[in-house]
C-alpha cells in the first residue's frame, strides 16, 4: 500500500511548476556558492569540497520547503480524513510520504553531478570521497526532512510549517556549533561530558566525516535513528 501513495506524492512534486522552480533554484544556488564562495575553480583542486561544505546550510532551507506541503496541505484542504479512509495505517502513510520527499531531495542532490564531472574533466578526483560525500548529504537530507515532516503535521499552513521546520532543523544543527558549546560549558557551566553529548546530537557533527571519505557506523546510525524517531513522532501526532 506504500507504493501508490509514494508514487502519488513523488509525482506530485512535478505536477506543478513549483517543483521545477525548487530544483532549479537549489542547483543554481549550489553551483554559484561552489564557484564564488568556495572557489571551486580557483582552488585548482579536483575535489567537491566546495559543494559539500555549504550543503548542510543549503539543505536547512531546502528540506523544510520540500516537506511543508506533506501534511499541512492535507490538513488545510481536508484530504487528511480521506487519506485515513484508505486501507492503510497512518505509519505506512507517514513512511510513504517521507520516502517521496526524500527521493525528491535526493534527486536534487544527485543532480549536482555536473560538478563531479567537471572535476573529473579537469583533474583526477577521488571518487571514493565523492561517493561518501553524496551518501552523507542524502542521509542528512533524510534526517532534516523527517523533522520537517513532523512539524508539517502540526499545522494547517504551509508557510507556518516551513518556518517551524526551518527553526527546528536550525536549532538541531546549532547544537553542534562551537559558539553554542562554549556557551553551554562556559556560561551555563555544564560538565563537558554533557556538552559533548549535546553537541553529538547535531547533524553537523555527524556529517563532517562523510566529505572526508569516512562512512562511520555511528554517523549512519545517528541519521537513521533521528529519521526513524521523527517519523515515529509524526505518526503519534497524526494518531487520533
Amino acid at each position, binding site marked *: 500500500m506504500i507504493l501508490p501513495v509514494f508514487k502519488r506524492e513523488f509525482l506530485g512534486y*512535478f*505536477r506543478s511548476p513549483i517543483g*521545477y522552480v525548487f*530544483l*532549479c533554484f537549489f*542547483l*543554481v544556488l549550489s*553551483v554559484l556558492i561552489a*564557484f564564488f564562495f568556495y572557489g571551486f*575553480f*580557483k582552488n*585548482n*583542486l*579536483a*575535489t567537491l569540497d566546495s559543494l559539500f561544505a555549504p550543503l548542510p546550510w543549503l539543505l536547512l532551507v531546502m528540506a523544510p520547503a520540500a516537506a511543508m506541503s506533506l501534511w499541512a496541505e492535507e490538513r488545510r484542504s481536508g484530504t487528511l480524513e480521506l487519506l485515513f479512509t484508505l486501507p492503510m495505517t497512518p505509519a505506512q502513510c507517514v513512511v510513504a510520504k517521507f520516502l517521496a520527499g526524500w527521493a525528491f531531495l535526493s534527486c536534487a542532490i544527485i*543532480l*549536482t*553531478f*555536473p*560538478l563531479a564531472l*567537471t572535476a573529473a*574533466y*579537469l*583533474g*583526477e*578526483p*577521488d571518487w*571514493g*570521497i565523492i*561517493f*561518501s560525500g553524496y551518501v552523507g548529504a542524502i542521509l542528512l537530507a533524510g534526517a532534516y526532512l523527517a523533522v520537517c515532516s513532523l512539524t508539517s503535521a502540526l499545522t494547517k499552513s504551509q508557510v507556518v510549517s516551513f518556518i517551524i521546520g526551518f527553526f527546528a532543523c536550525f536549532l538541531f544543527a546549532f547544537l*553542534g556549533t*562551537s559558539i553554542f558549546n*562554549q556557551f553551554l560549558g*562556559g556560561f551555563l557551566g555544564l560538565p*563537558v*561530558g554533557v*556538552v*559533548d553529548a549535546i553537541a*553529538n*546530537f547535531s547533524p553537523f*557533527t555527524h556529517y*563532517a*566525516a562523510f566529505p572526508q*571519505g*569516512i*562512512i*562511520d*557506523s*555511528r554517523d549512519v*546510525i*545517528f541519521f537513521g*535513528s*533521528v529519521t526513524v*524517531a521523527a517519523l515515529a*513522532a509524526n505518526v*503519534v*501526532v497524526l*494518531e*487520533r
Partner: protein
Amino acid sequence: MKLGNKLSAFLLIAAGLVLANFIASRLSLRWDTTHESLYTLSEGSRKLVAALNEPVRIDFYFSRSSEAVPVTYKNYATRVQEMLRQYALASRGQLTLQVIDPRPDTPEEERATTAGLTPQMLATGEKIYFGLVATQADQQKSIPSFNPQREGFLEYDLSQLVFSVQQTTKRRLGLLTSLPLQSSGPANPMMRRQPTPGQYVATEWERVFELVPIDASATELPANLDALAVIHPQRLSPKTEYAIDQFILSGKPTLIAVDPASQHFKQQAQGMMFGGPQPGASSDFSPLKAYGFTYDAQSVIGDPFFAADVQGQSGIIRYPLWLNLQKPAFNADSAATAQLSSLLLIEPGAFTFNEQPGVTYTALVQTSSEAGAVPAMTAQFAAPETIGRELKDPGTRVLAALVRGKLKSAFPTGAPEPKADEKPGADSPAKAPDQGSATSKNHLQESTSSSTLLVVADTDWLFDAYSLRRLGSYALPFNDNLAFGSNTLETLAGSPELIALRGKGSSLRPFTVVQEMEREASSRYQARLQSLDDKLAEIQHQLTELQSKKQGAQRLIATPEVKKAVDEFRKQEATTNAERRAIRKALREDIEALGNRLLLLNLFTSPLLIIAGGIWYQRSRRAA
C-alpha cells in the same frame, strides 16, 4: 490517542533515540572510501605491530574536558584514538592503549609535561595537551603534539614511533667518508692537533645510531653493522668497493652520497699557497653502474628555475649551480621527501637509471625541466653571472633516488684479486691472506632478499654552512637539509615495513588540465615577454643616457632634438608597457575563459535536464 498517551509515546521515542545513539557510540564500524585508504591501517603497519615481541604501552593524552577545545580538534582526537585502537587490535595484545585526559593541576598533567609533551595554546589562552607517549621497558618516545594539518602523515608518525621505541640498543651505522662530518674527538696535546668540530647532521645521526667510523682503506667492514653511509668516497680500492658491494647485496640499507664538486675540497685547494697536485673535489663510486645508475663525476648540474641567490661581484645574483630546491622538486609520495619544502644543493651531479628487472627506482629529488649540465672544470672557472649560458642538454635531472629490489653484484667474478704491487699489511691488519678466499666462498652474486640503497648526488648539503646557523649549542636551520639528512637516515633505519609506508595523503589532486594550460601559455608568451622586457630595458637605458646628457652639457637648455628624442622614447616605453600588460593578461585569459565556460555549463546543464524532463512528463500525462 489521549494527550497523556501521546506524551508518553514522545518520551519513549526520545529515550529510544538517545539509547540507540549511546549503543552506537560504543561500537564503531568504518568504511574508508578514500582511494588511498587514508584512514585505514596499512599492511606495513599491521606487520610492524604484529611483529612486536615486547609489550608497548601507549599513553594518549588529550584535554577532552577542556571547554575551549575546538570541535575540529575533538574530531581529530577521536580519529587518532581510533587509529591507535587499530594498532592495539593488530598487535594481538602486545600494544596497550591508555587514554588520558590531563586536567589542569592534576598528576596526569604533570606526567604529560615530564614525558615531554608540549601544551598547545588556544586562542582563549587555555593550555591543552594533545600528544602521546610510547613506552617499552625503560625506553620512552613521544609525539609532543598532534596537528590536524598533518593528518595525512598520522599513520607514518605512529608507526615510526612504535618502531623506534623498540630499538632498545642503538643500531650501528658504518660511516665511510672523506669529509670531516664527525668531530675528531678531544684535543690531543701529544699530536698538537685541535679537534675539528663535527657537522650537526652527524650529531643528529648519533641520536639514533651508534656511528662506527670506517677507514677509507679498510678492505672489510666492521662486523654487525646495521646500516652503512658512504659519503664522498674517493679513490676507493677495489677491495673496499667489493666490501661495500657485498654489504649492499646482503640487504642492509646503505646511503651513498657522491659529488662532482665538493666545496670542502675546493676550499682546501684554494687554501694551498702553491699549485701542486689539486686534491680531487669530485667523488665516484664505480659499482653504482652495476646497480643501474649512470653518474658522471665530471659534470655539474645547474637549474635556472631553482637557482639560489648568491653574492656575486655585482650584487646578489641567481646562481644556477646552487640549487635552492622547492616543493615541486620533491617526491611527494616518499616519506623521505614528502614533508620537505626546501633543500640547498651545491653544484650537484645527477643520476640516470638503466632500469633492471626486479628493481624499483624512485626519484626522490629532481630538478626542473630547465636544468642543464656543465663540465665541472668549466664550473670552477667561469664567471657566476654567465654560467647559465654554459648549461647544455636541458631536461629534468634526478639528484637523489631510492632503489629497492634484487641488485646484481658489481663484481660478478667474485672478490677482486690483490694487485701484485700491493704491499701486504698496508691495509688493516685484519687482512690475512686466507680471509680473501673465505669471502670468495660467501660471495653474493645477487641480493639475498631485497636491497635498499639511497643515493644522493651531492655532499655539500650535509655541511652546517649550507643548512643552519649555530647559536651556541642551538641550531637554527634555514632550510630542510638537516631534515633530509634525518629522513634519509630514518628511511635507512626503519624496517622495510616502515619504508613501504609512504607518506599517505600528501598528494593533493590539482586540476591537471589547468596546470597544462598554464605551462603551455607561459611557454607561448615567455619569449615574447622576454623580448619586450629587453626592449624596455634598452629604452630606459637610452632615456637615462639622454637625461644625463641634458643635465651635463646642456644643463639649462634642452635642444629640440633631445626633447623630441625623450618624448619619442617615453611614448615607446608607454606602448611597450601596455603590450607587456596585455601579454600578462593573456597568460591567464584562456584559463579564465575555461573557468567561465565551465561555470555556465554547470549552471545550465541540470536545470535544462529538469526542464526537458518536465516537458516530457507533462506531455505523457496529457497523452494518458
